[in-house]
Each structure stands twice: as structure tokens, then as C-alpha cells.
């Protein structure tokens, strides 16, 4: 059954009978802290963009439970092929927030050396594959990585994300098809947040759900309440185990909501009804999980304060350190096109360095703002 929506945490914060994954108290609190820290970080990111301290930002507000619940089902050795709206996973995998903020700035502490716009992270240390802007391309790559692991006999599992818009991409089609044909150990998580910038899900596809698309590829499809971190965790855990057993891929549709505008360049008020937002606000995944913790007596005001203040302090510290860093060196412009500089790149590099030394080059970029 693909259209049923799997839920665990009820309105009152109680878990549905027999469905509570019963995680240890410390783990539950850790998950909560990650969700809160993700939101704090996101708020800070947007603020910095508004202050002109970074050029762009994109929030995940409302989707913290979805991506954290999903990735929490993995082992650290498992790989992620993310989209751009799963920043909490970086925190889950222990990335230093300074490195995250450095990516926003594109400074010399950025693992990507300032090559991409903010929030397009790459963290090899966390098996977190470089995020691409083109929608969907990670899906077929995840399939291929899964095929490779199977060929090599590794038990690595691959989790990849896309949005509702991403289901229309070429790579959704071939990625799911390849994964199913080769029984690749991949979990495809579609975070259906209702919108692809200004295009509502109803104009994205006429199918009755995203999960049902799994049938086209002969793999199981599951719909889960994406604002219920435990439900997402439980569904993904099963999918991860299935993959690890060698039984192939699963499509998970995580039904959630993009509570913010698409990005700092967008204003959702221009195309979206405020009422829709209000309705979803009541289902905020953080509030919902808080209720669950309350029920379990794992939440107090004091805990809350500690979590929020701790998060703020950590991000503040990261911003401070990251902002003290410098731009990547000019010469790095030519690195990493290939493993080694070609003769052509050497010549172009020498020419540029020469001009830079003479002064003035690159100065007029500000003349044509958008």
C-alpha cells in the first residue's frame, strides 16, 4: 500500500501503539538537539544573507525532522547523496559548524574552496557527496555507487534525497530504474514539501502520490509523515536494512512542508496562500517531537534553554572564526580542474597572476549588480 501515510507521534505527543522505536533517552535528546541546532543555524544563515555578509542562503525550516530522521537510520560508513535542503545531516555527522559557515562565505576554510554558492556542501570526511545545483543528478549517481558497492561486495548503503520537483527530472527516472534492475542498496528519499519554488506539487505530477512512482520501477514505495522524525526514522531504517540485506532499493516519500521561502532570492508571499503556511505551522516537526519528549519526561524548560543557547553559541562561535578567514588564494582558481594543471591552465594562471600583481584586475565586478 503506497498511499497510507505512516505516522508514529500522535497529536498529543504519544507514540502510536507498538510503533515507538524506543530509542534510548540520550539519543532522543540528541536528535532533538540536532533539529533545534539545524534551525538555529538556518535562521542565522538567512540573517547573514539579509545583512549582506553572505551572498545567498536557503533554509530547511520545517524539514528538520524529515532529513534528520532519515539519515539517523544510517551507519557512519554509509554514504549520502544529498540535495540542498538537508543541512542537519552535517551536524549529525559531526561536521564542525565553522566549516559549514566557511562554505557559506566561500573562504579558505571551505572544503569546496569557494567554488559553489552557499549551502552546496561537500564533506568527504562524512561520506557526504558534493551537492550539485542541477536538480536530480545525485539520484543516478547514488544508483551507480550502489551498483559499485554490490560489485565489490561491500555492505555500504546509499541514501539520496530530492524534492517533489526532483521527481520530474531525467535522473529520477534512470536512477530508480538502474537501482531496481541491479538491486542496488539505495534509499531514495523524496522530501515532498509541496512546492518547487512557485510550482505546487499538484502541477508537478498527476500521480496520486510520489510513493506510488516506485511501482514503475518494481521497488517498494512508502509514504511517511515527514514532520514526524520517528516515523521517518522507522521507515528509513527498514529501507536501509532491506538495502543492506541485498534486497534492493526503496522509495520513501516524506510528506513535509517548506515553511520558508524557496531561498533568500524568493518571496513565497507572491504565490502562496498564507493559510497554507498557518496550517502547516501547527505541524512543526520540532514542536511535535518536543511534545513526544515531554510525554517521555525528557524535556524541561531548562533543557530547552540549554539546547537553544548552546546552539546559538556554537553557531556564533563558528561565524566568528569563519569570518576571520581569508579568501581562497588567487591561484586556486586553476586547481582541481584536473588532477594536474594542463599546459594551457599553467599559462592562463601565469597571465592572471601577472595582471593581479600589476593591480586592478577583478575590480569592476561590482559595477553590474543584479
Amino acid at each position: 500500500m503506497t498511499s497510507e501515510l505512516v505516522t508514529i507521534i500522535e497529536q498529543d505527543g504519544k507514540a502510536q501503539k507498538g510503533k515507538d522505536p524506543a530509542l534510548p533517552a540520550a539519543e532522543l535528546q540528541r536528535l532533538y538537539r540536532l533539529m533545534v541546532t539545524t534551525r538555529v543555524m538556518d535562521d542565522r544563515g538567512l540573517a547573514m544573507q539579509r545583512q549582506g555578509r553572505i551572498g545567498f542562503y536557503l533554509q530547511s525550516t520545517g524539514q528538520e525532522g524529515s532529513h534528520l530522521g532519515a539519515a539517523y537510520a544510517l551507519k557512519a560508513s554509509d554514504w549520502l547523496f544529498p540535495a540542498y535542503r538537508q543541512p542537519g545531516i552535517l551536524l549529525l555527522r559531526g561536521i564542525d559548524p565553522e566549516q559549514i559557515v566557511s562554505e557559506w562565505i566561500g573562504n579558505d576554510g571551505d572544503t569546496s574552496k569557494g567554488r559553489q554558492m552557499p549551502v552546496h556542501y561537500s564533506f568527504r570526511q562524512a561520506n557526504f557527496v558534493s551537492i550539485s545545483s542541477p536538480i536530480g543528478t545525485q539520484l543516478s549517481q547514488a544508483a551507480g555507487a550502489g551498483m559499485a558497492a554490490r560489485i565489490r561486495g561491500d555492505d555500504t548503503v546509499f541514501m539520496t534525497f530530492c524534492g517533489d520537483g526532483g521527481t520530474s527530472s531525467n535522473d529520477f527516472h534512470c536512477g530508480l530504474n538502474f537501482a531496481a534492475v541491479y538491486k542496488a542498496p539505495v534509499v531514495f528519499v523524496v522530501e515532498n514539501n509541496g512546492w518547487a519554488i512557485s510550482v505546487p506539487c499538484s502541477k508537478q505530477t498527476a500521480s496520486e502520490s510520489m510513493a506510488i512512482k516506485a511501482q514503475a520501477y518494481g521497488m517498494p514505495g512508502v509514504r511517511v509523515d515527514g514532520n514526524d522524525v520517528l516515523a521517518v526514522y522507522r521507515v528509513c531504517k527498514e529501507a536501509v536494512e532491506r538495502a543492506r540485506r541485498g534486497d534492493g532499493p526503496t522509495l520513501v516519500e516524506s510528506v513535509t512542508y517548506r515553511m520558508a521561502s524557496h531561498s533568500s532570492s524568493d518571496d513565497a508571499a507572491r504565490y502562496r496562500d498564507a493559510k497554507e503556511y498557518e496550517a502547516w505551522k501547527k505541524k512543526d516537526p520540532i514542536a511535535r517531537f518536543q511534545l513526544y519528549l515531554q510525554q517521555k519526561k525528557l524535556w524541561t524548560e531548562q533543557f530547552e534553554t540549554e539546547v537553544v543557547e548552546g546552539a546559538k553559541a556554537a553557531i556564533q562561535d563558528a561565524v566568528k572564526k569563519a569570518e576571520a578567514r581569508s579568501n581562497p588564494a588567487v591561484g586556486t582558481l586553476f586547481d582541481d580542474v584536473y588532477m594536474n594543471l594542463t599546459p594551457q591552465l599553467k599559462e592562463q594562471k601565469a597571465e592572471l597572476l601577472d595582471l593581479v600583481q600589476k593591480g586592478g584586475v577583478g575590480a569592476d565586478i561590482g559595477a553590474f549588480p543584479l
Partner: protein
Amino acid sequence: MTATETKTQEARPGFKVMTLLEAITDAMRTEMRNDDRVVVFGEDVGKKGGVFGATLGLQDEFGEQRCFDTPLSECGIIGAGVGMALYGMRPIAEIQFLDFIYPAFDQIVSEAAKMRYRSGGEYTCPMVIRSPYGGGIRGGHYHSQSAEAYFCHTPGLKVVIPSTPADAKGLLIASIRDEDPVMFLEPKRIYRHGKGEVPLGEHVVPLGKGRIAREGKDVTILCYGAMVHVCEQAAEEAEKAGRSVEIVDLRTLVPLDEQIVLESVKKTGRAVVVYEAPKTCGYGAELSALIAEKCIEHLEGPVVRVAGFDTPFPYTLEPLYMPDVKRVLAGIEKTFVW
């Protein structure tokens, strides 16, 4: 003040001062009023009016049948556009950023470009593919690319790039009326930079004709899009140093106005080719090759290219990647002293 800008906001009668972006909207509005076969579609072009606002107001005026949002599939956008054109419409497909056109590459180069030829002229594909392109807005790796050379190397496509508001309108209207598929690439860096007088209503700038953006005697700069403005600034500087620079704004890359190029180079004896795309195999290589083939005997120095580097597009170091006034000046000098 360069020839392509108007400092005052007042326009002559029959004209209106507009940004390049507004001129593009105006062109679509004009043609949608003129011809009910014209439809506009793409991601976010409806209620939102496009991520840059190029389609603002069109859905309101023409309804959801003639200006509509699509699913997130460039392949579908162009494939459906080809089908519409085959059936007799005049589709205008917006690709949100040129960097995202590649999922549709097959439909463009294998289908739109070749339909007329492979069917012996039985089926044709009069459609316009509009897309913002180029750097200068801090868009980083995937919101900055200049991919025009791919399309220029594909027989069956026309490739048009305006550099002023008036040309943007006139060339877009000509593109919509053209009987063949046109890649209409919009230099997003100058979407809102500088304004210019644009004729109201009917205004057609024919495809295949370049323009002399600035007259000069000593050296010719060949350029298009946002680079025209960089080159105009560089020309001012060079003038101070005693070099008289002629600037040819190509407007249409395919079919190229060879005559205007060759005449200018023959006159000045020197040529600098300026483009933002990666240097190797960029459109500027074609211009250099043309000169090397057809008027080498008139040259008094090497044909110099000032271009993007042969790297993907960077984010932080973008100001160093883009050809700027200093680099254009250095290019000019190389045609004199090498």
C-alpha cells in the same frame, strides 16, 4: 555615458525608457497580442513571473493557457515545445538558467535543430528558447555559465544575444517570428543595469546583422552580451592612452554578420575577441578562425582572445574569472606589442 545607455529617464515620443529585462517582457507581450499562436512556458513563469521577472504580468493578461508553469523538467519543456511548434504554435520556452539546459540538450540538438532538415522540410520547428546566461551576479558554479558555443556549433539553430534594451526587444520579436528555432540568450548581468530607450509596439531588429557599438581606427573588438559594456569602458580607457577602438556588437552569433566583422578588421588591422565562456573552443575561437582564414593579409598583430579561463565557473573568485576592463586593455595592448 555609452551609446547604449540613457542617463535621463525621459524618452522621446513613441519610446519608453526600459531595462533590458523590461524590454524582453515587452517583446513577449507585444507578440502575444499580435499572434495567438505565441505561448510562454517554463518553471515559475506563471504566478511568480519567472525568477528574474521576465514574464511578470503575462499570465494575468493572457491566462493560464498561454503563459504557464511546467513540471521541473527541461527535457519536457523543450520536448513539449518542439511538439507544439510541429503542430503550428509559436512556443517560447524559458529555461530558468542556461546552466540547467543540459537535460534538454538532446531535444535541442537532435530534434529542434534537425527537424526541418531530416524531414526534407516537411516539418519545422519555429520556437524560441529563452534563457538568462553569463556571470557577474555572484551565481557561482551553476548560475553563471556561458554555453553559447555549444549551440553555435549545432547547424539548424540560430543564436541571438542582445546587449541593449532596444535590441533585446527588437531581436526577440524577430526571433519569435523566425521560422526556425532560436536560442535567445539573455545576459542576466545587465538585466537591470542601465536603461535605454525602447520603441513602443512594433520593433524588429533583423537577425544576422551586427552593429558598430563604437567607431574607431586602430583596433577592433568583437563582442556580444554583457561584454559589450565592459569593452565600451575599456575603449574609453584605451582612448585616453591614444588607442582608437572600434567595437562590433555581434547581436546574432548564428548566422554571423561576417561582413561587419571583416570590414572592421580590415580597416583597423587588429582584432581582440572578448567572451565570458571558457576560452578553448568558445565562440571567440570561431571569430579568430574566420579572421585567420579571410583577412590575414590585413593583420598587423595577433588575433587576441580575452575570455573566461578553462575552468568551471567559481564563486568567490568570480571577479578574477570574468574578463574585465583591465584584461581587455591588456588584450588590446597585445595586438600592438607581442
